[in-house]
């Protein structure tokens, strides 16, 4: 025993992350609940700009993904990594910098998103100073994790650790790739890419945020905590190897399935679809591995709430990873895109896979950390059933809503006209489903409160062991040298740097094949002569649109289906978006598509609609935006914005930039005149934000107006 070393595991950092996971879970879910209520009763927008749905929705997504799941990842990683490698974390200081840095980022998000400081890139809304902070904290985490791996006593790296390594490197690449932006000011930036290219980069990122933040680290946690909870080894280690490499390689390509039937080139859409379908194999490999680990132990699942949570989590993972690929089939996506089916699908994954696995992990961890038994198995079992019920009440109404809405959008009368020509009819029809969804969310959050009570009582009953002393053979003894003819994968598992390099290569390939041609081959985005950059006033209006989060409910991408061209106008061409920074195609139609809104309604309609949507659209669930009429339009950054866009490639002339403010004021005066003619008179109306918003909305989709129509005007 003389070669045994005594050291201790750091449980303090695990406890910190565990507690904060639960706290942010509640916060993120309550914000989600608020959003759910807002869709039923618009009065829940509370009359403040900061609490409108458009600003609240990204707060919810960021809180759920980065605050709840993010801290859950770190809880599990910090616990499992030390024990799998039989060593304490590389640096307690870095552990704490990571913890406090991450929470500071979350607080920054909680402040900036309601203030409308957003890049409008889904799941990457945070503006550039916070992006830099994320990068710094992520590097700290990486140093701490790799430092721990390099000082390990256990030579071989268990499969969970490969998932952690792949997570770390891919999130790094994605974060940099999708946040390439040029700042205009401290809180505003424009992305390097525009239009179609921006869309592709965004969804290369967006889908892989799902893959490498919501999936791979949790698969790592699954590979650790299910064997621990069941006290048996994983079903097939060989399967874990094959599905790891297949998963990380294939997932990257799936991004374009968010852009099916849009103006993304067909070859990219095909790739996205086919690779998404192929993804079923490695995803189900993981699911089967998790579930079959419990073969012969299913009687324990009956009594152990931890195993119950884990089984439902893995099942939900399997469900979502079958549903997702099926929704990636173009003909299915033609029905599901922009509907609540997508939201239902997302929440099977987040509530089912991420939520339930987090709860199972916490229920398993707390007794271990506090050296005691779980306070109440009955309450944990109750939470399990509450959570499962919550998921069902959440998802099933949304499937119903999604199909209802989609079919209503597509239905024609025998005469050949749309049956539901008024989009609002398709919204009011699904409000009962929204109510059921809100009930589901409430039930689910209720379960989380039950968990928090149980965990606090557990902690109080036990005694926390901050530094858990252990013994393990010393590194020099534990490490055996390599031997000739050693199989290459065993060699990789002993060499963390090589694993990192190969994983990086695997994840870069998909991105390069899809993005590189889009950026370098001009034919992929056919130019349209008549498309011109936005005027200064229209640009300011666009930035207000971004600030208010209109993107959360309105799309700007008309698909080439007759049901869409009949409802909205000519389908959207890629060349129309070449000056759109960021792209605003949207993912959801709670309200109608806006791409051909320009010229459809008079300026006064837009004024009234923004002031009180129900005045023009009775029954609308859109919140009112009276502050657009009350607040002065700030033109301080206009020149800087045009200069930044010119640097990025938008062909503004020097004259346009020099005269930007003057031109904006002139265009604003024209709009104010038009409003006055329609009976809307107000002191200083031409200086208010509403005229900029009207300018932008009236510009939408007008670049390719058919000649006859243009001549008539």
């Amino acid at each position, binding site marked *: 025993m003389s070669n045994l070393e005594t050291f201790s595991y750091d449980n303090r950092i695990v406890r910190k992350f565990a507690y904060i996971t639960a706290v942010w879970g509640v916060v993120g879910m309550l914000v989600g609940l608020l959003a759910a209520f807002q869709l039923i009763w618009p009065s829940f927008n509370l009359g403040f700009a900061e609490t409108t749905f458009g600003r609240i929705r990204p707060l919810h997504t960021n809180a759920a993904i980065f605050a709840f799941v993010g801290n859950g990842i770190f809880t599990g990683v910090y616990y499992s990594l030390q024990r799998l490698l039989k060593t304490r974390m590389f640096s307690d200081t870095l552990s704490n910098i990571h913890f406090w840095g991450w929470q500071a980022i979350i607080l920054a998000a909680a402040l900036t998103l309601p203030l409308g400081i957003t890049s409008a890139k889904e799941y990457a809304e945070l503006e550039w100073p916070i992006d830099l902070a994320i990068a710094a904290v992520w590097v700290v985490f990486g140093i701490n994790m790799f430092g721990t791996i390099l000082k390990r006593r256990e030579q071989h790296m268990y*499969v969970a650790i490969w998932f952690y390594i792949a997570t770390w490197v891919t999130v790094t690449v994605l974060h940099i790739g999708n946040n390439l932006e040029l700042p205009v000011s401290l809180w505003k930036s424009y992305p390097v890419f525009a239009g179609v290219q921006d869309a592709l980069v965004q969804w290369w990122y967006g889908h892989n945020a799902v893959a490498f933040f919501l999936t791979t680290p949790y698969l790592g946690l699954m590979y650790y905590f299910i064997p621990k909870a069941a006290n048996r080894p994983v079903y097939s280690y*060989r399967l874990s190897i094959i599905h790891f490499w297949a998963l990380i390689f294939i997932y990257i390509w799936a991004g374009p399935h968010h852009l099916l039937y849009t103006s993304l080139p067909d*070859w990219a859409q095909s790739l996205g679809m086919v690779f998404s379908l192929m993804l079923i194999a490695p995803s189900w490999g993981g699911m089967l591995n998790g579930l079959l680990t419990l073969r012969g132990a299913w009687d324990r699942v009956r009594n152990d709430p931890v195993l119950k949570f884990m089984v439902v989590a893995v099942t939900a993972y399997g469900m979502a990873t079958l549903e997702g690929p099926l929704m990636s089939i173009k003909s299915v996506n033609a029905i599901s895109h922009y509907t609540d089916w997508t939201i239902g699908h997302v929440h099977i994954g987040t509530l089912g896979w991420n939520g339930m696995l987090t709860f199972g992990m916490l229920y398993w961890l707390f007794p271990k950390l506090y050296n005691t038994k779980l306070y109440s198995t009955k309450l944990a079992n109750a939470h399990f059933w509450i959570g499962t019920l919550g998921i069902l009440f959440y998802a099933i109404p949304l499937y119903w809503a999604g199909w209802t809405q989609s079919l209503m959008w597509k239905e024609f009368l025998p005469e050949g006209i749309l049956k539901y020509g008024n989009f609002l009819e398709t919204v009011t029809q699904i409000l009962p489903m929204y109510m059921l969804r809100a009930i589901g969310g409430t039930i689910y959050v209720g379960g989380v409160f039950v968990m928090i009570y149980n965990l606090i009582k557990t902690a109080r009953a036990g005694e926390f062991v901050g530094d858990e002393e252990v013994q393990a053979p010393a590194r020099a003894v534990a490490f055996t040298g390599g031997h000739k003819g050693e199989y290459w994968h065993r060699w990789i598992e002993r060499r963390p740097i090589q694993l990192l390099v190969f994983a990086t290569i695997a994840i870069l390939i998909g991105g390069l094949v899809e993005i590189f041609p889009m950026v370098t081959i001009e034919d992929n985005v056919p130019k349209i002569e008549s498309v011109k950059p936005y005027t200064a006033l229209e640009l300011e209006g666009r930035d207000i649109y971004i600030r208010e989060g209109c993107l959360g409910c309105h799309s700007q991408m008309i698909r080439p289906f007759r049901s869409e061209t009949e409802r909205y106008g000519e389908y959207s061409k890629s060349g129309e978006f070449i000056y759109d920074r960021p792209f605003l195609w949207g993912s959801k139609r709670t309200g109608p598509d806006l791409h051909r809104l320009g010229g459809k309604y008079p300026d006064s309609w837009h004024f009234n609609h923004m002031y009180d949507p129900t005045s023009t659209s009775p029954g609308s669930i859109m919140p009112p935006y009276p502050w657009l009429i009350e607040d002065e339009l700030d033109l301080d950054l206009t020149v800087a914005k045009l200069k930044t866009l010119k640097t990025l490639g938008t062909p503004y002339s020097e004259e346009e930039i020099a005269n930007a403010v003057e031109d904006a004021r002139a265009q604003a005066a024209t709009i104010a005149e038009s409003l006055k003619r329609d009976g809307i008179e107000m002191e200083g109306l031409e200086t208010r934000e509403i005229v900029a918003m009207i300018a932008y909305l009236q510009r939408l989709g007008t670049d390719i107006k058919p000649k006859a129509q243009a001549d008539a005007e």
Partner: protein
Amino acid sequence: MYKYILANGGESINWMAIFSLVTFVFLFVVSAIAIWGRSKSYISHMETLPLDLDEENIQ
């Protein structure tokens, strides 16, 4: 046949889909070969790593 491919292949053959299928097959074949060569004792060591010596810490 070659004339057809050279003349029309750019538009009418979905090269990207073919490429993706070939990539998929290649990846799986390589992974499968890599996995079948593992020794049983090594596999059994790796799969029990999470279960080793955690609760029985020597204080």
